[in-house]
C-alpha cells in the first residue's frame, strides 16, 4: 500500500486510528499497530511477509543472544552471523540479478539475471500452482534490513538493550509509517517510545498537519513535476524516448525539475511517515532539512536523506579497508554503498561515487576556504552538482546516460532550445515557483511570526487549519486522476 492513495487516506488510516485509540492499554495499542502494519505490508505482495517475519524472528533471537556475550568471542561470532544473514538477504533479493548480469558480461556465462526473488516466486508458482505476482524485490527490504542492522550493531556495542518481547521487536521492524520507504528509524531513537509512549494533543495536531503536508508535497507538487520530467525525457519504460529530441536548454530545465521532484517526493514521504508516527506517539528524526539551501555538497548530504547518510557514517565509515589510506577507503565504501543502496544498477553506483568525489574535493579544499566562496557561487555550484547528479540517477541505462550528457553540453545533435521547453515552463510556472519556494525555509520563517503575539498566533494557526483542509481536499482530488503513482523510494 502506498500513502498517497485514497484507500489509504480514507479507509486504512481512519480505521487504524480508531482501533488504536479505542483502547488505552499500550499492550493492545502495540498489537493493533503490528496487526495494521502487517496488513499494510501484505497489501501489495502478501507473500513477502514471510521474509519480514523470518528476519524479525532471526534477529530478535540474535539480539538477545548477542547481548550477554558482547565481550566474548562468541558474541563476535553471533554478530558476524547477524551481519551475514541480513546483508546476505539484502544481497540475494536485491542484488543477485545485478551480480549475475555483471558476471555474465565479464565471464561470458549465461546465469539467469532475474534475481533470487523472482526465482523463488516462480518456483513457488510452479510447485503450488498459485499465481503469485512476480515482483523480484520484497518491498521495503532495504529499509527494514538497515533498521535491523542498526539494532543488532547497537546491541553489540552496548548502546541499546536487546528487546526481549518479540511483539515489540516486530513492531519496531514492521511499523507501517516507515516500513516501506523510510526514514530509517534507529532502534536507539525510539527505544523508550516502544516501551512506553503517549499521544499528546500536540502530537495529534502536528501529526495530522505533517501528514497533510507530506501528501500535498507528493500529490500536488511531486507528481506534477514528474509529468514535466517524463514530458521532457520520457522514462525508463519507453527507453527515455524524449532524449531523442530534447534540447540543451530543455535538458538543463529537465534536471532541475528532477531535483525538485525528488526532493518533494522523498521528503513528502518522510513527512507522512513522521506525521503518522507522531499520531501514534513516535518521534522519528527529521530526514530532510532543506537540502537545497546547502552551500556545499558535504552540507547537502547532511540535509538530504539524513537517516541514510548518518547510518553509513555511523556504521560503515570506519570499516577499515585500503590499509593505510583508511580515511579514503572508508569514504569510498560509504559512497559506493550509498549509490548501490539506491538500486542495483551501475548508474546508481556512479551517482554515489560522483558525490564521493565532490566530498573528497571539498575535504581537500578545506572547510574554511569553502566558506570563503561567495554564497551565490556556492549555491550555483551545489545546484549544478546536484542537478547533474540526478541526471545520473534518472537515466538507468548507460547509453541513455551518455546521450543525456551529450545533450547537456550540446553535442548530441539536438537543438539548443525548443518551443516545448518554453511552453512547459509557462504551463507550469506557478507550480515551479511554489516548488522553489517550498524547498527553502521561507514558510518556516513565516510560520514563526505566529510566535510574536496572540493575534499573530491566532491568525497563523487559523490560516494553517484552513490550509490543512484545502490542501487535503486538493490532494484528494488530484489523487483521483492518477491511479498509479508509487513513491520513488518504494523501489529501494
Amino acid at each position, binding site marked *: 500500500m502506498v500513502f498517497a492513495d485514497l484507500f489509504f*487516506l480514507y479507509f486504512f488510516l481512519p480505521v487504524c486510528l480508531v482501533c488504536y485509540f479505542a483502547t488505552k492499554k499500550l499492550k493492545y495499542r502495540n498489537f493493533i499497530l503490528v496487526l495494521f502494519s502487517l496488513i499494510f505490508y501484505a497489501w501489495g505482495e502478501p*507473500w513477502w511477509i514471510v521474509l519480514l517475519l523470518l528476519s524479525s524472528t532471526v534477529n530478535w533471537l540474535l539480539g538477545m543472544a548477542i547481548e550477554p556475550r558482547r565481550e566474548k568471542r562468541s558474541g563476535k561470532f553471533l554478530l558476524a552471523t547477524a551481519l551475514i544473514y541480513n546483508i546476505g538477504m539484502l544481497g540475494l533479493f536485491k542484488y543477485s540479478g545485478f551480480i549475475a548480469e555483471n558476471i555474465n558480461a565479464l565471464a561470458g556465462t549465461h546465469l539467469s539475471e532475474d534475481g533470487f526473488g523472482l526465482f523463488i516466486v516462480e518456483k513457488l508458482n510452479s510447485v503450488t500452482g498459485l499465481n503469485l505476482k512476480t515482483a523480484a524485490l520484497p518491498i521495503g527490504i532495504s529499509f527494514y534490513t538497515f533498521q535491523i542492522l542498526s539494532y543488532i550493531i547497537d546491541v553489540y556495542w552496548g548502546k541499546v538493550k536487546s528487546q526481549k518481547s518479540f511483539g515489540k521487536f516486530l513492531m519496531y521492524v514492521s511499523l507501517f509509517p516507515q516500513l516501506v520507504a523510510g526514514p530509517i528509524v534507529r532502534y536507539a531513537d525510539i527505544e523508550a517510545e516502544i516501551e512506553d509512549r503517549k499521544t499528546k494533543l500536540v502530537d495529534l*495536531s502536528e501529526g495530522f498537519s505533517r501528514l497533510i*503536508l507530506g501528501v500535498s508535497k507528493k500529490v500536488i507538487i511531486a507528481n506534477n513535476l514528474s509529468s514535466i520530467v517524463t514530458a521532457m525525457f520520457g522514462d525508463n519504460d519507453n527507453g527515455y524516448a524524449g532524449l531523442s529530441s530534447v534540447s540543451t536548454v530543455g535538458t538543463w530545465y529537465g534536471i532541475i525539475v528532477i531535483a525538485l521532484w525528488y526532493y518533494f517526493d522523498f521528503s513528502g514521504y518522510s513527512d507522512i511517515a513522521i506525521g503518522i508516527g507522531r499520531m501514534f506517539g513516535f518521534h522519528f528524526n527529521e530526514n530532510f532539512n532543506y537540502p537545497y539551501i546547502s552551500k556545499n555538497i558535504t552540507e547537502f548530504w547532511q540535509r538530504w536523506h539524513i537517516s541514510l547518510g548518518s547510518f553509513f557514517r555511523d556504521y560503515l565509515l570506519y570499516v577499515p579497508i585500503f590499509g593505510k589510506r583508511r580515511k579514503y577507503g572508508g569514504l569510498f565504501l560509504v559512497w559506493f554503498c550509498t549509490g548501490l543502496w539506491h538500486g542495483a544498477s551501475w548508474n546508481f553506483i556512479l551517482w554515489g561515487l560522483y558525490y564521493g568525489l565532490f566530498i573528497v574535493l571539498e575535504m581537500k579544499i578545506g572547510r574554511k576556504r569553502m566558506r570563503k566562496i561567495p554564497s551565490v557561487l556556492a549555491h550555483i555550484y551545489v545546484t549544478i552538482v546536484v542537478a547533474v547528479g540526478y541526471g545520473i540517477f534518472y537515466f538507468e541505462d548507460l547509453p541513455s546516460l551518455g546521450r543525456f550528457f551529450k545533450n547537456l553540453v550540446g553535442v548530441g545533435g539536438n537543438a539548443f532550445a525548443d518551443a516545448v521547453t518554453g511552453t512547459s515552463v509557462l504551463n507550469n510556472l506557478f507550480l515551479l515557483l511554489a516548488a522553489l519556494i517550498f524547498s527553502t525555509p521561507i514558510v518556516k520563517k513565516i510560520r514563526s511570526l505566529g510566535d510574536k503575539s496572540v493575534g499573530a498566533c491566532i491568525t*497563523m494557526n487559523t490560516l494553517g487549519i484552513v490550509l*490543512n483542509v484545502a490542501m487535503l481536499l486538493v490532494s484528494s482530488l488530484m489523487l483521483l486522476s492518477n491511479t498509479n503513482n508509487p513513491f520513488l523510494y518504494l523501489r529501494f
Partner: protein
Amino acid sequence: MENKENIEKVSNTEDNKNNSENNNTETKKVVTIEMPQQKGIKMVEGMVVGVDVVSEERDKKTINLQLDPKKVKKAKNMQMREEKKRSRKQAVKKIGRKFGDRIREGVKDEAPKTTDKDMDIRACRLEMNFINVIAMILVFAVIAVMLIVIKREDGRSVFENRELADFPEISVSQWLGGNFTDGVTKWYTDTIPYRDDMLSFSSRLTKLFGLHIGNDEDKVILDGNRGDIEKQTLSGTVTTPKVEIFTGTPPTGTTTDGADVTTPSGTVSTPQQTTLPVNNDNTTLSNGIMIVGSGKNVRALECYGGSFSYGKSYAEFVNKYKKELGQYVNVYSMNIPTAFAFYCPDKYKDDYGDTLDNINNIRSYLDGVADVDVYSALKKHTDEYIYSRTDHHWQPLGAYYAAQEFAKVSQVPFDELSTYEKVVEEDFVGTLYGFSGYNSELADNPDTFTYYKPHNNNDLEVYYYSPDFTDKSVRSTLFFKAYEKINLYSTFLGTDQQIAEIKTDCDNGRTLVIFKDSFGNALVPFLTGSYSKIYVVDLRYFTPNAIEFCQNVGATDVLFATCMFTCTSDKANYIENLRVQNKTK
C-alpha cells in the same frame, strides 16, 4: 486534565532540553509550558506548513491526551471552553498594554521567567492545536464515511472509453498473488462517487499551475510524455511511383491464378508472425497531447512521432500483398494524416515528427501499390471542418475528401457531397477529453459531428460478420445511433471488430476490400456509389488469412487505409500478420 492548576513552570529550559528523560517524567499528566524560544529555534505547534519539529522539543509536550473520544469528549469540551475563555480574557487584557508588558496574575507569579505574552501564545497554541485536531478528524471522518455510504460509480467510464474497475473476487490464490488487495485499492479510487465531475474539477485545478497566455496560436498546453521522435528528413524529392490501375474484368478463372507466381516463396511458405503491439482500442498516446487555442477554437492534438523504419516495413508489407494478389488486383495505400499534421503551431513542428516526411518515406518504398495522396487532398481544405477538435478521428467531411481522392486514383465513379443527406449531431466531446486528463476547455467547447448518408442508403445490403468471417448477421445498416456522445464516430459500422459486407447498387462489378483502422470507417459511406461490393476489415481484429480472404471474396481492389499512428509504428506489423496468419492452403 485540569491544566489550569497544573500549568507548571519547568525551570531551566536549556538543561531540560538535553535532559529529556528527566523532563519527560516531570511533565507527565501536566500541561507543560513550553520554554521561551531560544537561539532561533522557533517552534510552533499546531501549524501546518513546513513543520519542523526539532527532536528535543518532544519532551516538553503540552498536554496528556486521553483519546477515548466518547468518554472524554464532554470533559474536554468543558476544559477547552474554559481554556478559550481564559485566553480570550488575556487577549483582551493585552489590548492597550504596551508590547511585552507583564500581566499580574496568579499563574504568572508561579512562572516568573515566562512573560505574559508567552503565556498567551502558549494557551492560544494549545487551543489552536485542539481546533486543528477536531477539524482534521472531522474532515477525515466525513470523507471516509461519505466514501462508504454514497453509491459508487460503476460500469463504463464514458470519457475514458473503458470499464471501471470491479470489486475483485476474493479467493486464497487471488489474495496470495496480491491481486485481491491491488484490486481493492484500484476499485476504491476508480469507482469514487461523482468521478467524472471530480476529475474535471481536478483538471481545472491543474490548469492553475501555470500561465496560459498569448493569442490562440500561442496558447498551448502540453500534456503527456514526449515520445521517441526520429527527426528524419528525406533527402531529395520523392517520385511517386506510377501504378497502372486495372479496371477491366480479369480473364476468367484467374482470380487466384493471376497471382504472381514468382513471389519470393520464402516468406510465404514459412509464415513468420511479426511482433504485435499491444492491442488496445484507444490510440496510445505515445507522444502526449497538445491543446491549442481556447474557446470555440480550442483543439486537442495527438502529438505525432512516427518512425521511418516502421514506415518502410509498412510499405514492404503492403508490397507483398500486391505481389501475392497479382496484376488483376489493385492495391492502394492511403496514409491518413492526423489533425496534428495541419494544426500544430509552426514553432512546435521541430519538436515532433513530420507527417509529410513520413508519408514520403513510405511512398519511396511502395512497389506496384498505388498511393492515395490524402495529405495533399486534405491540405487544401484545412480551413474547413475536416477534423474534430476534441476527438482523435477526422470529421466525415475529411473522409469525404480522402474518398474523393481515392476514387480518382482507382478510377471509379464518385458521388458529389450534394447528393448526400446531411446529419448534424451537436455536443460531441470526443476521446481526447479523457486523454487530456479532462481538460475543461474541451468539454466546454464540444464539436459538431456532421455525417452524410448516401442517397442509396436504404438500398444498401449491409451484413456484419464476426472477426473470423463467420456468423453473418441479418441485413443491417451502415449507420448506427451512437449510444454515447463520445462515441459518435462509431456511427459508422458500429464497432471496429466486426467485418462489414456492403452490396451497393453500383454496377461496375468491382469489389473493394478495405483494411483499416478506425479512421477507415468514415470512408465507407462515400464509396457506396463507387464499388459494387465493399468489405471492411479491421487490421487489429481480423483472424482469417488476408490474402485468402481477398481471393475468396473476389476482391478487385484492396485498400489499406490507416492513420499515421498505425502505418508508422509497430502497429504496421498487423498488416504483415494478416498476410501470413491462419493459412488454409
